[in-house]
């Protein structure tokens, strides 16, 4: 069994803007140095407040008790949803034997990727779902 090696990583987040609603797409916030379709994603993990209470931008992360109420979709630079509606619980490392989710490396479009809620109980407006993406830079 293998586990991921971190070469580069960045904490990214999708904010629950407005009243939380089931099915809405909450897109990941832009990160300037990752916004040129220059990131080859090969793994990621999700954080709730149990792992990361607040983001470096001081946004409150959704409570740990809501880790079974959201799904994540990653889109690549060709608009293909290559990970579609994966439960975020599956991507929380400490709940899955310490393993980090591995992906076939792809160039992603961060701001096209999104979170959807399947239940809004316990989730408040302006909270975020945080993720750590593990990546290579195109051409590096």
């Amino acid at each position, binding site marked *: 069994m*293998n586990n991921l090696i971190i070469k580069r990583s960045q904490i990214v987040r999708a904010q629950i803007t407005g009243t939380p609603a089931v099915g809405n797409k909450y897109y990941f916030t832009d990160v300037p140095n990752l916004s040129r379709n220059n990131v080859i994603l090969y793994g990621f993990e999700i*954080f709730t407040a149990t792992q990361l209470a607040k983001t*470096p931008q001081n946004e409150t992360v959704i409570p740990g008790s809501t880790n079974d109420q959201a799904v994540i979709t990653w889109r690549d630079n060709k608009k293909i949803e290559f990970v579609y509606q994966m439960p975020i619980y599956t991507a929380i490392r*400490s709940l899955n034997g310490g393993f980090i989710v591995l992906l076939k490396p792809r160039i992603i479009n961060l701001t096209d990727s999104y979170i959807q809620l399947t239940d809004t109980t316990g989730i408040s407006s302006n909270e975020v779902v945080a993720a*750590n993406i593990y990546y290579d830079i195109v051409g590096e």
Partner: protein
Amino acid sequence: MAAFQVISPLVAYLEAHGDIKPFAGVEGERSKLVTLNFPASAQNGDPFYFASDSTLDYNNATITAIELVDVTTNVISQTQQGYKDNITTASAAYGYLVFSDNKRQEIAMIPLYNLVRRLNSGKTTFLNIKTQIWQNCYVAVTDILQFSTGSTAFTFRVSYVPKY
């Protein structure tokens, strides 16, 4: 009859590109404990820089794994300011570690909770950091009130491969 091992093409590809390795694999040729005290008047978001340690700079070492030693793993560490308690995992949720290079560009940003090995079924966090300047790397916190800044300190076990 020889054992037959099935390896998926994706695993073989990721291994060949240095993206993964066996979770029970070698963490590094060497490891050392590094402590970090809170600075005076620490504020949310401030970078708490590590002291200079040239053995961990990129021209001397590749950092291959890192572990946050929490208070359950080891109660007390010896720091430059004397013996301090290690932080709790509840506090760890309010901090993150950043690796930076000689231009202070951020290479990797990892929440502290993730680095506590025992919370991740004993699996360490593998790294392949090759451009770091150790004194440019830092810890930052998002709520300083969650920490006992006078009596606790951060302790990391850093695994590395010397380049010479």
